[in-house]
């Protein structure tokens, strides 16, 4: 399913747009003009990567020091250990669309516990 995110003109380079679905997905517009979509939640702890430090094709979690590669979802260093999902992005008529990955998301333990109804 292709989900409309936002218009490309409304997402300046160096910025991110968060799609408030469950789990949330974020679209990044890099300084080089490329557009990527990855899961928005850091796999280490509940933090929004859309709030993070975007540099090149990497976003650093806003809380700690792990960086995720927007192209592959891979993480470079602790405290996060698992990658985020990447999602296919298409721009049509100036609109950014996201096709959600069918893989299971790698959510942090506290979020998994909350979704399961356990203690956060």
């Amino acid at each position, binding site marked *: 399913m292709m989900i409309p995110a936002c218009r490309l003109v409304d997402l300046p380079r160096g910025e991110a747009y968060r799609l408030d679905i469950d789990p949330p997905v974020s679209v990044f517009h890099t300084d080089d003009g490329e557009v990527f979509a990855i899961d928005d939640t850091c796999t280490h702890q509940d933090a929004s990567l859309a709030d993070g430090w975007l540099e090149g094709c990497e976003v650093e979690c*806003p809380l700690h020091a792990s960086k995720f590669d927007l192209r592959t979802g891979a993480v470079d*260093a602790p405290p996060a250990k698992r990658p985020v999902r990447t999602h296919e992005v298409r721009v049509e008529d100036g609109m950014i669309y996201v096709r959600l990955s069918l893989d299971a998301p790698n959510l942090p333990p506290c979020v998994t516990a909350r979704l399961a109804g356990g203690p956060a």
Partner: protein
Amino acid sequence: MRTVAVVGASLAGLSAARSLRKQGFDGRLVVIGDELHRPYDRPPLSKEFLAGALAEADLALEQDDEDLRAEWLLGVRAVGLDGPQRAVRLADGSEVRADGVVIATGAAARTLPGTDGLAGVHTLRTLDDARALRDELALGGRLVVIGGGFIGAEVASTAYALGLDVTVVEAAPTPLAGPLGETMGGIVSALHADHGVRLWCGVGVKGLRGESRVEAVLLEDGRSVPADIVVVGVGARPCVEWLAGSGLALDDGVTCGADGRTRLAGVVAVGDCASWYDPRAGLHRRVEHWTGARERPDAAVTALLAGGAVEPSAPRPPYFWSDQYGVKIQFAGHAAAADSVTIEEGARDDHNVLAVYRRSGQPVAVLGMNQPRLFTRWRKQLAAAA
């Protein structure tokens, strides 16, 4: 360089080992750690792990499929370094000779004199410390935290959430004034009172009362605070005693250049035990932050492998975080350099603040409480200005 010994198997040591492989070192890699545990993450020890929300397996710093092709000597303490030979002597009498040595022995919690062997008294630095404290907190009761710094505040916050009766005693008039300055130290430490945790400032601790188990904390003003559990959070000292006689300069940690190089060829120091030169401030300082232990080994390993042939790149401004009472606290830069601090966004009563520290009008530090997005922007700006 054929053999590199990394002394210390926590975040700084692991990061150094990873950097070595990433930067192409293909020789023998020996990692020496005095704890029996594989490298684990310490920040959760005062928070999620202590609260029981994270298990030990969640603390592992290594990836499941990671193989650094290292020899791990765990549960053995380094007791000496022969500087010219670059030989690390171990407590079991053996020795590791290396062409390069990375010193990453960290810091140890300071204790109160005369409290050894008194049950109910804890420090919090290692996984074993955290296990012991967690087991006692589970029994409930009255907790007194000595020291209102970040470790003390996080333990108080966690224990409060677990339902304990908590008192924090701090010798300084304002907790956190060192790292955050008076104004913001006051605002952040107000989180205690906002949640019904007693905070007593400006009074020192004279000692503890109790025969086999602690019963009370005795204050210098004559008061005594009843306690079932006491956590001593009064800072840490660098673990460098073992380096006496090695030829290294030791002054509040191993004295290093701006890239971790020491005065001995082939020896670098990283993490909490290392006092790096800060070219911007023109002085040496020991940075006890997770982020420094994670990032700085990259530069030190570059210097080690290049034999000093590369210029160090400027490190990012120091960054640390804390979680207290559900509030995410973030800080970057140096508060001590500032002549003003202003709250630019949010309101202190909402625990939602972005404060910028300036010197002669130029930003030198930034503090966020539940402001991750704005904080990141300011942090980037600080790094760009540096």
